[in-house]
Structure formats: C-alpha cells, structure tokens
C-alpha cells in the first residue's frame, strides 16, 4: 500500500523529501551551475526519484504518481529548490503526463506514461516556430493526412533540450480558419528517431546549448499519436496549465542572485558606500515584498482555489527583479565585469556574468513580459481591444 502523502504532516513530508534527496541526489548534482542539465547528466537522480515513486508528484497514484494536492506540491517544489536539486528534463513529467492523463486514450496512457517514469522516453516541447513566438497561433508546421498517418513538414525552434530528447510533443497545423487562427491546430506526439527529423542545437548567451531547432521533412506520424481531437490542439494544450503557473512567479532566481550580490558586496566593501546601501535596500525590499505577494497566491493554491490571470504579475515582477539584481552585481564588479568566468573571492567565487546572462531569458520565455502585460490588460483590467 503506497503512502498517502497528502495525509502526512507538512513537516514529515519535508523530512521525507529531504531524506530522499540525501539518498538519491549526489552532491555534485546539487546547486548545479547549469540551469538545464541533459538527461544523462542527471539520470541517476531521475531514476532514483522514479524508483522511490517520487518522480511524478501531481500524477494520480494509479498512473504511478504521488497524487499530491496543490498544497503538498507547493512544498515539493519549495524543498526541491531549497535543497539545490537540479532541474531534470521534466517535459514528460510536467506536461506530457498531465496532457495524456486529461486528454489521452487508454492506449496512449498505457503506452507512454510508464515510459516517462522509466526514462525510456525523454520528451521535449515543440511549440515555438521561427515566425510563431509570442504570436504562437500563427504556427504553420503542417501535418497533412495520408490515410492512417500524418505527414509533417516544417520547423520548430527554441525547443529546450531537444538534442537529448527522443520524443517531441508538438503543435501542428492540420487545417486553417482565417477568422480564428487558434482553430486547426493539433497536438501530435512524434518519435524523434523517425526519418526526416533533424535537430540543431543553438548556443545561447551563456555559452550553453539548452535549446535547439528541430526540422521536419516528410516525417510520417501515425494518426494514433494525436492527443485529444484533431484541430482542437490549442484548447487541449492550454488546459494542462493549472496551479503550476504560480511557479513562473516564484522568487527563487532573484533570491539566489541577491545572495550573490551580497557576497560580492561584502568582498568589495560596498556596504560602506551610502549610494550602494540605497540601491541594495531597494532590491532587498523588492525581494521581501515579492515574497509577500507570492504568499497571497500560494495561499490560494494551498486552499485549493483557482489561480486567475492576475498571477502573471508575479512573473513580470520576479523576472525583472532578477535582471535588476544581476545588473547591480555586474556594476559592483568593476573591471571584473569583463570576465566571462566567475569572479574569485578568496576561496569562493561569484558567477556575476553567468547570472546576468541567465536573467535575460526568463523575461522572454513562458510568454514574454510584454505578452503577460497584454494578457493582464485584457483579462484582468478588461481594457478595450
């Protein structure tokens, strides 16, 4: 009989999680510099979580998940960050699983879910295209029906970790309705070993290759690999993001950056400089107040409520604060701001440039901050179009 994790106290749950991390997350995987390690780099942790039944926190128990309530899931994510666990390739766990559990056929669930848990299938997400970023509904990678198969042609881009994935779940265009562009989009699961699929990693500003271009040249995909109804993919894809949206607004990244800022500030004697103290205090209070605002939404999640569109304000604030903190750190570095490598402080070091560059990304991904503002203007402030 599996443990009902929702029934244990929060404190016991935290301890169980900490014990598990102690067991299966080696020290060299903790607090990794890399934001998006590849599957192989963190495989031991992935399999360790799976063996102990902790890999899929929100999946129902009958599918091999923990069936955590949103409240317990919040703690799971909190502890994950606090203990410095690495990000695992989690598109399968976080997106494909919930998508199939909600919209998949029995056959799809039986086939794919166990293979996500075992790590046999490593998933990536094919949404953005060269001409469909913020304007995602303009995507045009085509899937044309040919009997029991779709023939896919087109290109995806900014596909995170596609170079170490073997399956991609993607949005394809199956028909076109000029009036409503969101219609005619379909969710399709594609085996990346199929002939005609090509992957080209793209180096980012940090010198890492987190994301890729993925090319599709007459790729034949069984019609059985459609999730949900054909042409209804927009609605299907949107439906899987529930309380997880709060995590885009978590204060985690700015907290890490602020700790680095203070470390460098101490080393440089900046706390004796009134001008710095003023800027430092502003950033400290922004971080503190972000915590207060985040807590208001966390409470909604813990109490089982539905998040409104207004939660986007956290994403804007936290990503812009992350940028401002890393900009201040770089300014404090003086001529060491020339360094791509970390700045040495005695036996320690501060990754000023690493974080500054990293902070460019979150304001763009997950819906750029300008798109978030558009959403808030429309859905929350009800401003005219």
């Amino acid at each position, binding site marked *: 009989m599996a443990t009902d994790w929702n029934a244990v106290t929060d404190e016991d749950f935290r301890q169980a999680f900490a014990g598990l991390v102690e067991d299966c997350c080696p020290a060299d995987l903790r607090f990794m510099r890399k934001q998006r390690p590849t599957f192989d780099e963190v495989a031991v942790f992935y399999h360790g979580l799976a063996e102990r039944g902790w890999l899929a926190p929100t999946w129902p128990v009958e599918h091999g998940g923990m069936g955590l309530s949103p409240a317990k899931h919040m703690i799971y994510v909190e502890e994950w960050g606090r203990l410095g666990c690495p990000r695992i390739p989690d598109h399968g766990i976080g997106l494909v699983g919930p998508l199939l559990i909600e919209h998949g056929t029995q056959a799809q669930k039986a086939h794919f879910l166990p293979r996500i848990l075992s790590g046999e299938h490593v998933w990536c997400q094919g949404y953005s295209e060269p001409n469909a970023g913020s304007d995602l509904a303009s995507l045009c990678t085509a899937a044309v029906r040919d009997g029991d198969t779709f023939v896919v042609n087109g290109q995806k881009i900014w596909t995170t970790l596609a170079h170490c994935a073997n399956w991609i779940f993607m949005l394809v265009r199956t028909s076109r309705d000029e009036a409503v562009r969101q219609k005619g989009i379909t969710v399709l699961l594609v085996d990346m070993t199929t002939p005609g699929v090509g992957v080209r990693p793209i180096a980012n500003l940090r010198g890492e290759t987190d994301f890729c271009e993925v090319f599709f040249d007459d790729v034949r995909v069984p019609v059985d690999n459609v999730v949900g109804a054909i042409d209804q993919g927009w609605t299907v894809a949107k439906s899987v993001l529930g309380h997880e949206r709060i995590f885009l607004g978590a204060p985690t990244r700015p907290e890490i950056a602020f700790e680095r800022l203070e470390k460098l500030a101490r080393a440089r004697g900046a706390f004796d400089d009134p001008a710095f103290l003023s800027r430092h205090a502003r950033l*400290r209070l922004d971080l503190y*107040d972000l915590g*207060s605002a985040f807590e*208001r939404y966390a409470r909604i999640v813990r109490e089982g409520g539905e998040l409104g569109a207004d939660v986007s*304000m956290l994403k804007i604030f936290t990503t812009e604060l992350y940028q401002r903190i890393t900009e201040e750190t770089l300014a404090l570095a003086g001529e060491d701001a020339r360094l791509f490598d970390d700045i040495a402080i005695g036996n320690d070091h501060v990754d000023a440039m690493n974080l500054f560059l990293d902070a460019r990304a979150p304001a763009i991904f997950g819906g750029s901050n300008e798109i978030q503002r558009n959403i808030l*203007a429309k859905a929350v402030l009800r401003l*005219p179009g």
Partner: protein
Amino acid sequence: MPELRFDDPDGTLAMLRDSVAALAGRHPGAASLRARRGEARDTDRALWTAMAEAGWTGLLLPETIGGSGLGVREQAILSEALGRALLCEPVAGSAVFLSCVLAGAPAGDERDRLAAGFVDGSRIIAPAWRGGKVTARETADGFLLSGAHGHVDQAASATDFAVLADTGNGPAMFSVPADSDGVTVDLQRSVDGAMIGTVRLDNCAVAASGMIVTPDGCEAVLDRAIAATRLALAAELAGIASQAVQDTIDYTKTRIQFGKPIASFQAIQHRLVDMWSDAEFAVAAVSNAVEEAEAGEGRRTALAVLAAKARAGDAAVSICRRAVHLHGAMGFTDECDIGLYLKRAISLNAMLGQPEELRLAFVKLERAA
C-alpha cells in the same frame, strides 16, 4: 481591483467598508477637501465628528477606556477605505497614534478625560511630538514646557495637545490644553489642502497630572504608536493607489482619440498594467504587515511595517503621478479629482519616513540580527 482580503467571519470588515461608503456618500471626500482648502481650515469638523460617532477614531482604543477595542486588521480595512474615498481627516496620524499612546499610558484621570473626549468627538486632541524639540522643566507643582513641534494636524481646532517633551530623564508625553498660557500655533498650507500647524510652547505650565506617559516606558509606547500609525498610513496609501488606478482605467476607457478609447492603445495598456501591479504589491505588503502584527513577533512585525509603508508610499505617489499624466491636460486641472489623490499621496508618503529612509531602516534592523 487591488483590495485587502482577510477572513471576515462576523462581517465586521464588510460593515466597516459599507460604513465608509455611506459616510463618503454624505461627505464626499473631494468636496470636503476643496471646501476645507477654500476656507483655509485645518479640519472638516462635521466630517471628523461623524468619524468619531462612527467609532473610527477610537477603533484601536481598548474598550476599558471607551474605545472599540478592534485590531490592526479592522484598522487596515478602515484606512484603506478612507484612502479610496479620499476622506482626508487625520485618522492615521492622530486617531491611531493617540489610541496607542492612551492605551499605553498608565491609568489616570487625565488619560480617561482625554480618551472620553477623543472617542465621542467632543475634544480634538492633536499630537505634537515631532519636527521640533520641547523640554519639560519640573517645578514644585508640575512642569514648564518650552519649545516647538511641527507637522501638527488639526492644530488650530485642537482643544488639547499631546506633547512629547524631554524631561531630562527621558521623553514623556504631556496633555496640554490648547488654551493654556504660553501656547501659540502657526499655520501653513499642506499640499493636501488642510492647514497644518507648528505648536510653540513658551514656559507653558502643566500640572503634574498632565504627564500622561512617564519617561519610564515612553519610548516603548512611542515605538508601538509609530508602528501602528505607519501601518494605517500604508493601508490608506494602498487605498489611494488602488482608487487612482481604477479612476485612470475608467478615464482612459472613455477618452476617445483617433477614433478609439485611448485605453485600447498598447502603450497606455502596459502603463495601466504596471500601475495596477504596483497597487497589488502595495496591498500585498500591507496584508503581510497586518498578518505579522497579528502573529505578534516584534522584530518580524517591525520589518513588515517598514516594508509596507515604503511600498505603499512609493506605489501611491508613483501611481498617482502616472495617473495625472494619463488624464492628459485634464489631469493638470484642479477640478479633476486625480490631482487631489496625488497630493494626498505625497502628504501621507512624507509622514513618518519616506520610502528610502524606511528601506534603510529595514535593512539595518534585518542585518542587526
């Protein structure tokens, strides 16, 4: 729109909001402010009396000395609603401050006399405790007070002053009837339309019983009173911020240029979203401070209050500045209410520490651990 949200099992909070709305119906904030300003008065006596009758001035005052004995949560809801309605009497700076002083004062006839008159609105007691220096010299039967304090609300209408003075053995709080010999009041115009005073005392004789808070414990009483006042100011500023966002959304939705409401332009929309978000953060900071105050841990509360006043002050002033701009030339006119919100925000933001000072105090307190 941004608004404080707390559990309200017995409906007290909803009742407070309704009662502010009802009073604002009878004494519209902007009209009261303009009238007060036009006649160079320091208070709208009818409005202040109505507030006292509604139980708002003694909201935090313990029931044992005639108050309502409510808590920080109720005060925050009231102050937020007052900010929204632009009801500009000094509830935070005078009523909240005095309630804490009287609650912290040792039992005594003079304390009870002040509390009774303060709660029923028959007396106006103006705290005079900052922006200057007053010394108290002990005499055979009392004290002689000399010096001055500034930033005194309701200074001309006051029947009594609560004066902070240095006794040589530490600060103490004195009750000084306004008609005492040696008391003079100078008035200046404040930006939000009320006259504010400097109270001068020249060898003003006060009976021994007039020392309502003794040096023993005065600093602790002051600290609590300052924190409670700052929290009420923060809530009022958050209310101003939220209302200014709402008014600006309403205005830009109706203002047509180039054949469309200007609220349909993305440049305007993104500004409105940022203003709205700033107001939400202000409300969240106030909410956090209320909860910390209720939890009762001193240092955490002190930090949360500093953060809330800084955040709400910054938000209210900067939102109102942007709101004036988005009202176009209309926003620059005196007949448009949005400018009154800006002026009120500036005034409250300036009280008991501007954001920069509060932020530095926060970090200092946090790092002292």
